[in-house]
């Protein structure tokens, strides 16, 4: 591909509008507040914003239960506020990606209200999946095992069961009924005409249902996505579709198609293995999963993250690994939710700055586009006692003033209490403090993001692991036609020596990228390095013999 696409070079910042900044003092973040904070976002150096759902919704699943696809929830502002935000973001060179929840709506959506009252077999009724019994599709697993007992729920108004893969108040749309996709394509056109740069396609693996299957990743689902992609390509060039499919890399690769489905997809299995590798102080879990990751079409890209708005999902690890992860990262059972751990990055890392830096160095140097979850750039903590995943969705901590500077409302009026514990509370962890501290995590993250953007090889370059006897050290080469970058990471809490087989690069001079420091030239002997606890190096390998 001659020129990497914008999403292949992006650094994405994920945020819920409600959590970022409250401009009108009602205790809930809003679009005017987000506009006020765009200078901060721009100063981070990120290039793209991913907004969690902001549409009208009863908010029983934090907005993923949408009641109207083409409006803004009144708590977050008006449609014009969104337009102003979009324009302001674009003025700063920031792309904006929003959510497209294809799989289901809220029960309160007019489509469902109409369907439940429509005669069985009618077009209106067929917008959703109905059954006279709750026994169809028995091979489909229940995803929210902590709160749901069945994928079917009885609707007394319709006198039938409706199908839902997630909460019982989120009926699944029926894509076997063509008007459903037509409606959703109109939604796509509505937002893209306004200028949004892409959609994150939520729960994209569950669009179709077929008897005798797990109702996941079905060919019919891929056919729907191909139709969506054709529609977007024909009308809206330079836009992006990001698939949320929490499956193994081989299955997720199917969502790229032949470059004719989604442009991006999350690499879900990588994240728990990074945490695992760090805890066992062994590179193998990372090497194994990246080696098991098939190549993807040139125009596509992995979306990488350390943490996000959901629990740290452990669905993609085996039982032993899951037990280990629970013991290692959630000794307190309160931290566990569904099949995962509901904690932010800093608490998972024990607030260890070196570990935070190491993990971010991996996030920013593995093949893919990194996503930073709001607040993780300052090491925000969480509140696992808030229920569901709300503990990682608390107000952004701007200052050490009332409500963390997030809102002028009375504290009880906030949509969520701010984090107040002595380690991660807003008095200790906030943007204002870190702006004034030249050595803060915030400043470090800014530098790392800036450095990453200088080297397109991080976005689209190839990945080759470098042999080293010491398995506590992970070494790999990222390479494109311009640059060759050697990344070396010490996954352990103690100093480590390592001898790297770099004979293929004999004659090159490693330049340590953060300080532009020249190291001894690579020769025919193993290249010897020592790394401090959780230390990492990024080297630019410069050829001096040409």
């Amino acid at each position: 591909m001659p020129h990497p696409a914008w999403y292949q070079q992006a650094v994405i910042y994920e945020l819920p509008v409600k959590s970022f900044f409250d401009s009108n003092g009602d205790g809930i973040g809003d679009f005017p507040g987000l506009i006020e904070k765009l200078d901060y976002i721009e100063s981070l150096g990120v290039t793209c914003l991913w907004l969690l759902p902001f549409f009208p919704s009863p908010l029983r699943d934090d907005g993923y239960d949408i009641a109207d696809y083409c409006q803004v929830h009144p708590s977050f502002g008006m449609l014009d506020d969104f337009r102003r935000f979009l324009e302001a973001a674009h003025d700063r060179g920031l792309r904006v990606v929003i959510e497209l929840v294809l799989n289901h709506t809220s029960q309160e959506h007019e489509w469902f209200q109409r369907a439940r009252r429509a005669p069985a077999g009618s077009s209106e009724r067929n917008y959703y999946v109905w059954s006279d019994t709750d026994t169809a599709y028995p091979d489909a697993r229940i995803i929210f095992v902590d709160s749901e007992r069945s994928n079917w729920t009885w609707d007394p108004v319709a006198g039938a069961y409706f199908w839902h893969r997630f909460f019982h108040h989120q009926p699944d749309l029926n894509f076997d009924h063509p008007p459903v996709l037509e409606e959703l394509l109109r939604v796509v056109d509505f937002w893209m005409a306004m200028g949004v740069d892409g959609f994150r396609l939520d729960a994209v693996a569950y669009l179709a249902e077929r008897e005798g299957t797990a109702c996941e990743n079905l060919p019919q689902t891929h056919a729907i996505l191909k139709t969506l992609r054709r529609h977007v390509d024909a009308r809206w060039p330079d836009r992006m579709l990001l698939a949320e499919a929490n499956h193994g890399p081989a299955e997720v690769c199917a969502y790229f198609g032949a470059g004719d489905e989604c442009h991006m997809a999350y690499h879900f299995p990588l994240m728990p293995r990074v945490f695992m590798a760090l805890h066992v102080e062994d590179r193998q879990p990372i090497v194994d999963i990246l080696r098991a990751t098939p190549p993807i079409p040139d125009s596509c890209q992995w979306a990488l993250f350390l943490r996000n708005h959901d629990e740290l999902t452990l669905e993609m690890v085996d039982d032993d690994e899951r037990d280990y992860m629970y013991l290692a990262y959630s000794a307190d059972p309160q931290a566990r939710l569904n099949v995962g751990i509901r904690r932010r990055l800093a608490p998972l890392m024990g607030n260890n700055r070196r570990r935070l830096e190491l993990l971010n160095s991996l996030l920013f140097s593995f093949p893919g586009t990194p996503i930073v979850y709001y607040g993780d750039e300052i090491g925000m903590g969480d509140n696992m006692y808030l229920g569901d995943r709300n503990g990682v969705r608390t107000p952004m901590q701007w200052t050490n003033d009332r409500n963390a500077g997030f809102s002028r409302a009375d504290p009880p009026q906030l949509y969520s209490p701010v984090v107040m514990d002595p380690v991660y509370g807003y008095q200790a962890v906030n943007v204002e403090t870190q702006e004034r501290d030249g050595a803060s995590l915030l400043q470090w993250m800014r530098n790392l993001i800036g450095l990453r953007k200088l080297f397109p090889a991080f976005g689209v370059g190839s990945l080759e692991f470098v042999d080293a006897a010491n398995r506590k050290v992970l070494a790999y080469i990222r390479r494109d036609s311009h640059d060759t970058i050697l990344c070396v990471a010490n996954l352990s809490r103690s100093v480590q020596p390592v001898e790297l087989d770099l004979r293929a690069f004999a004659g090159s001079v490693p330049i340590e990228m953060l300080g532009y420091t020249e190291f001894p030239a690579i020769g025919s002997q193993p290249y010897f390095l020592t790394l401090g606890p959780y230390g990492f190096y990024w080297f630019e390998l410069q050829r001096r013999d040409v």
Partner: protein
Amino acid sequence: MSEPATGGAVVAGLITYQDAATVGSVARAVRAGLAAHFAGLPTRMLIVDAGSTDRTVALAREALGAEADVVEVATPRSAADLLEVPYHGVPGKARALHALLSTARDLTARACVVFDGGVRTVTPAWVASLAQPVVDGRVDYVAPFFARHPYEGALTKGVVYPLIRALYGVRLRQPAAAEFACSTALAGHWLRHDLWARHGARAGIDIWLAAAAAAGDFRVAEASLGVRAHHARGEEGLDLASTIAQVIGALFADVEKNARFWQRSQSRATERLGSPVVAVPTDPPAIDPDRLVEAFRLGYQELRDIWTWVLPPRTIVDLKKLLELSAREFRLDDELWARVIYDFAIGYRMRPVARDHLLRSLVPLYSGWLASYVGQVHDLGPEAADLRVEALAQAFENQKAYLIARWRWPERLRVG
């Protein structure tokens, strides 16, 4: 970079604005140059006027006669053009150049050579010196080198040239000149570039074109043309602070934009064409080193606080040592000056203080450098003075690693 367009015309463009006093002679010289040096090739003359209210266009047409090869190119203008204080004297300079280059590209020009309608000293030989290397397919971009008194063009000598040379690897000593020649391939490259809509284009466009040619890996050369004298357009009274804010701001904006390129670039050959003309204007700019040193001292007292946002303590201490020196003794070390400029470039990128304030706070430092430079070249001939500038440029190259290291991992010297 692509092969030269071998079949197209040699296109000469005049960019004019209120140039009634000079445009006739410029047009005749260019016409004569085309006739004398490119007689066997098709030629076209383009007039691109940026909104003159005098008889500039009529006089240009009159000078060129009713030849069929004369094309008047309309320049889209904005009301803001006439409200701006133009550094270059031509409102909407970037738009005028864009229109000219677009026309040259559409004509698949073999070479396009650009002149400023306000220059009194254009000769037919300039046309050949600039355009011939492009017509021959040897290079894609030819910048001029004008003979100047050592004091003349000091901002270019002290900042623009050394920075462009160190970062982009090309030795174009006057990269901000209005005159140049380019290939169609380069014109197309420029026209595809996003530099036309950038803030500061009126002062920066010439520098940006030179930098884009270098960053695009086009072959560049420099042609010695002699003395350049310009008629007054009224911009000569622009104060030093505004000039520095505009020119250095434009330069730093380009440095920020091309960071990926210059951190990888190596020094490369820049062909120097023609014999240097050593005759210089007999009327050198009046420069008073005592006043410059006093401006430096005053700036140190008043602006040191701003400097501490971008200059590390070591540099501040080194600058402080200069306070004790008289104008005769005053010497600002080349490598120190290079680091000052690099730290300001990083400050421009990081914005610890407003960019305009930052750039204006550079003025006393520049005054100090100028005093030092004048003290070193005041009794040197042009060639020796050029060598002095070359030594300065070498210091910028030596300190490039300093810039890269701090650019990649900036240190916040002051916060809060």
